């Protein structure tokens, strides 16, 4: 058993590059999904029934489709439309589009419970549209949505493991290839499990510090 972990240690470079790829993939798609969410959320609450309806279909549709199936559709199905993406691009695109739906719903939830008074006060003080959004609307919105966005971030990290099936060299893929070359399944995968746990603990720590900032500002 000790020997098995020695084998994993000798392959640490591969494992660490897998961990780095998982972190990069999750961070990039979380940021992109959040930005996309900022576009979809106003559409969800739009007064035009067609716009609101289309956004609702997108959000509910994504929430009803398993991520793995969606990743398959992007990777294997899109070439039917003449869109051929490599595994990195399709993995990133799948993670981003899928989670944008969740981010939009999270932001909408945080938006509906925001008090209206500070915004009206901001308008009365003559803030420009962009200034109002950046200084008055955005900070409390992000602070109150922070914990839920953090949970979604953990979900993104776990979803990124599914991308191992389209041969994206992330953490699970690295563990898999170590196990298949040296036949040390327990050592390889348990190490991966603890690395995922570590990533999630980092995010949880980040979320609780956001929570403290929000508490201090109240």
């Amino acid at each position: 058993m000790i020997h098995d972990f020695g084998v994993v240690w000798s392959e640490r470079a591969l494992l660490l590059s897998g961990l780095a790829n998982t972190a990069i993939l999750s961070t990039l798609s979380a940021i992109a999904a959040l930005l996309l969410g900022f576009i979809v959320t106003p559409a969800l609450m739009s007064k035009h029934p067609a716009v609101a309806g289309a956004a609702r279909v997108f959000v509910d549709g994504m929430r009803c489709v398993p991520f793995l199936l969606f990743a398959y559709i992007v990777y294997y199905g899109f070439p039917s439309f003449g869109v051929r993406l490599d595994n990195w691009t399709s993995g990133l695109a799948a993670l981003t589009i899928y989670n944008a739906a969740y981010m939009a719903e999270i932001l909408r939830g945080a938006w509906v419970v925001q008090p209206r008074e500070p915004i009206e006060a901001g308008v009365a003080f003559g803030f420009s549209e962009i200034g109002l959004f950046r200084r008055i609307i955005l900070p409390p919105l992000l602070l109150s949505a922070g914990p839920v966005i953090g949970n979604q971030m953990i979900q993104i990290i776990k979803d990124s493991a599914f991308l191992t099936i389209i041969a994206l060299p992330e953490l699970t893929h690295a563990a898999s290839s170590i196990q298949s070359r040296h036949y040390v399944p327990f050592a390889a995968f348990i190490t991966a499990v603890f690395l995922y746990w570590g990533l999630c603990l980092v995010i949880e720590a980040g979320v609780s510090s956001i929570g403290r900032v929000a508490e201090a500002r109240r």
Partner: protein
Amino acid sequence: MSGGDITAILQGAIVTVMLSLVGILIGLPIGLGLALLRWARVPIASGVVTVYVSVLRATPLVTLLLLLFFALPNIGLPINPISAAILALVMNTSAFNCEVWRSALVNFPKDQYEAAQSVGMRGGQRFRRIVLPQIVRVSLPGLVNEMSLLIKVTPVLAVVGVVDITRAAVRIGAQTYEPLPPLLVAVALYAPIVFALVSLQRWIERRQIAAEFAA
């Protein structure tokens, strides 16, 4: 895509639904048991449960499944794909269920518990007649949400060779060189199941809010 292909995907659907049901039915009581261990602050066990839940909630199902499928035979426990799939689903969902149950238990009003004690109910009776019916109601939306999440991670089971909806669809796509139609059939099977659960969850929540207003 032929009629036989559709049948193959539908057979996959039966596997998906059966595995999900088994996972849910075993995972629910185990989650409750784990939550009770933490709630009652059983020494050592509650600490173990805390770590178990934290690790399992952070572990992707693919990684857990590969670990079980390849490592258990290595330590002398032969396991077939279906058992590995069920074990992985149960371990995963019980950790999430534990948190749902536990938050209901933590918020359970203490005075009711003390009232039950003062009228001379035993521990088992208190739990069955006073605590359980109420925490089931509170936990229900969270548990239904977890069920829809469970169904959404089942495609991962294909990795160890379980032929579910997704695996059947991908296999047909590889045979016909037209991957999109079978994948869309798969979407058409998953979406209603998950949508039904999501709607059920919203309906329960609305009904509970309405009941609170009426009270």
